């Protein structure tokens, strides 16, 4: 695991630790919506970087899938928050995720060719693993609204699919 990903994982762990132990102030639905949406936006940005930088067919196809799927899910999420009249609320977990993604983006920008491909895909495996862990242990259990919970559950299934897809591409690159 890279340093910045560790930082984000730690942030999420802290978030769980700070809120979960007491069980009283779990993340609220507006915070959950913000975290899930941010996680999607960050992966879309990573995908755009990969599409611009990679010449590997499997890597570009994977990145295009990330772009397409995360845009589709985020558009569903926006429709839902509008319908529920919820305003997504920025929070420390979202901030930590964004910071870690920015560090990674700069790290990747220094690489090229096969080196870039491997680093991007390995990061995608780790990133989806991390987000899926957060969905399973924190976001889905804490979600109060049934429709939000259901969208997160579909999101989890989708991102588990992405993780497997990334693992297949990573194995091909070895």
């Amino acid at each position, binding site marked *: 695991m890279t340093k910045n990903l560790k930082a984000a994982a730690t942030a999420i762990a802290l978030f769980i630790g700070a809120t979960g132990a007491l069980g009283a102030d779990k993340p609220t639905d507006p915070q959950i919506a913000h975290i899930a949406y941010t996680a999607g936006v960050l992966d879309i940005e990573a995908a755009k970087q990969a599409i611009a930088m990679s010449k590997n067919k499997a890597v570009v196809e994977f990145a295009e899938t990330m772009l397409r799927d995360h845009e589709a899910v985020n558009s569903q999420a926006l429709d839902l928050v509008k319908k529920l009249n919820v305003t997504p609320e920025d929070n420390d977990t979202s901030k930590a995720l964004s910071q870690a993604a920015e560090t990674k983006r700069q790290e990747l920008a220094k690489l090229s060719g096969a080196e870039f491909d491997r680093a991007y895909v390995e990061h995608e495996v780790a990133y989806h693993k991390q987000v899926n862990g957060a969905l399973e242990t924190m976001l889905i259990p804490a979600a109060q609204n049934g429709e939000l919970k259901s969208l997160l559950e579909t999101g989890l299934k*989708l991102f588990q*699919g992405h993780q497997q897809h990334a693992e297949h591409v990573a194995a091909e690159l070895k």
Partner: protein
Amino acid sequence: MSMAVYHAAVATLLLGAAAIAAPSQAETIKVTIDRLAYAPAEIEAKVGDEIEWINKDSLIHTATVKGGAQVLLPAKKSGRLRLQEPGSFDYICRYHPNMKGRITVRP
């Protein structure tokens, strides 16, 4: 029975069988995709049948047999495949490999 009559009789039988077999027995089997799952996940069919996947998700999926056929299923659209050989085929979505299905094709 003379050879000519015999041939004519066999030909009639074959034509008759073909006329009955082709359009009336081939079926279309529908598989729905909803929230990243094929339903039903396992289907039985016979050679000549057609499978229609109806994709209800807002995501592009596929039905991809490893080393074999692939049907692209755009968001909110459907796709079809005619079954040409008997056997048991596992398939996945190439974009979401945790989506799994199986088709068993009888001769």
